[in-house]
């Protein structure tokens, strides 16, 4: 069971601000999901190799070469705030 404090801590780690009433509902539903997930706990999986991926082959490597044209202007057109080709964020160092 997750406590209210744990829920708030997870939200901080996930960078999601929670509003008061939302926290209560989330606490309930997260605990419901974890109760579902708990069904795995009793299964004996000793000696079973974790499967991270359906493809057993190692991932392909490519040449370390430039393959894309410069799309900076097009990509930055979607940004909330840019200036002189740079992405702007709130000041972090005074």
């Amino acid at each position, binding site marked *: 069971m997750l406590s209210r404090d744990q*829920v708030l801590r997870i939200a901080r780690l996930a*960078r999601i601000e929670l509003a008061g009433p939302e926290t209560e509902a989330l606490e309930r539903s997260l605990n419901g999901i974890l109760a579902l997930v708990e069904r*795995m706990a009793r299964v004996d999986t000793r000696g079973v190799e974790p*499967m991270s991926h359906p*493809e057993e082959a190692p991932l392909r490597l490519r040449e370390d070469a430039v393959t894309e044209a410069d*799309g900076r202007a097009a990509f930055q057109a979607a940004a909330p705030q840019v200036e002189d080709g740079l992405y702007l964020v709130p000041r972090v160092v005074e």
Partner: protein
Amino acid sequence: MHRASLAELARALRAKELSSVELTRAQLARIERFNGKLNAFITVDAGKSLAQARAADERLARGDAGPLAGIPIAHKDLFCAKGWRTTCGSRMLADFVAPYDAHVIERFDAAGAVLLGKTNMDEFAMGSSNETSYFGPVRNPWDLDAVPGGSSGGSAAAVAAGLAPGATGTDTGGSIRQPASFTGTCGLRPTYGRVSRYGMVAFASSLDQGGPLARSAEDLAILLDAMAGFDPRDSTSMDRPKDAFAGALAGGAKGLRIGLPREYFTQDLAQDVAGPILEAVEGLRRLGATTVEVSLPNQHLSVPAYYVIAPAEASSNLSRYDGVRYGHRAAEYSGLDDMYAKTRAEGFGAEVKRRIMIGTYVLSHGYYDAYYLQAQRIRRLIAGDFAAAFRKCDLIAGPAAPSVAYDLGAKKDDPVQMYLDDLYTIPINLAGLPGMSIPCGFGAKGRPVGLQIVGNYWDEARMLAAAHAFQQATDWHLRAPPGFD
């Protein structure tokens, strides 16, 4: 015209009985007429679609047109299409205009298809009822009180109602097969690695796979021929000889060994669904297939394992939505961390927040082994169940969902109950196998039932041939929802 198959449309376009502009206009008119009821499309841009249609007509006149030349196709709104708004059903991307094309979009362009519009979906593909969309729920054309399934609910509803002759979807835990089942359409999730994920907004990268929705197995084959293929920009795209799906449809069902998992036909399966499924299996037998009982003993662990693995991958993938490079940014904040937290609080809906937080938790220090590694071990057990089953059979048949479509709102407040309903589709994603749903009858309230056919890795051609043989002998796939016929 709006019930014509892709093969019929391609023939009529080549014979000049129909132009792409006429066909595209007709589909746009149907969208205009019915989308208010169904909410299947998020974005329609008649000017863009008709420009593509005119270009297709010119190529058709010159005789150098691709296999889908001039045919309008709808795309789930998580495939980036250059110059088109690509929202992923989220406020986070509500105004995002994609600066590049997904590989799937490039493939449809190369085949000459017209982009008809972007379809509604559960937010970031997280949902099974299409009720988590920021743009409102989609309704099921068979019964406007019912959900269409999800997350590719807009694509499924559009195809069922004749707003589009074919569409794309994605399937991470059943998001093509379950809406296909709920709307009486056909949907195929290919083998993991068959269709490039490049330009497809990521949810859970080891499970996501794009695939087609259409009104027949033959049309699925035509669409899969266009979509599939190696793409070096997706590190998990498989470089293998190209299969010809439409060309292999005549393979039939004769001599196929159909596996019936003991665990699929239990009290979890509603009677009104079990009846049509067993009847369809009987139909496959009449076509010369044999049946054999198989067992998937770890099937019941698939939903719990999925709700660790998929949220874990989602929490990582969705960390990119930070309000800096694209997407929503909160209007007011006090510093960088506050900007992130408020942006994500405003941009994501409740279901997405739940999954990000579960993922954050199971990946955090002290819980990683108990949850994440244990889920990955169970994933291997589930894949092993299928490997054992496929030593005894060629295809596996069963339901795609435990019930017919339910009413809007019926499960909205009980996420766990909705998750558990994906018990027949999720194991296939965990294993990375291909699966499809085709209509095979009707259950309670006249709502459609889908037969799920699961194949071994890379065996889509055999699945499609069996489904095509079934559809040559039956007419479930030709039924149209009343009011949309």
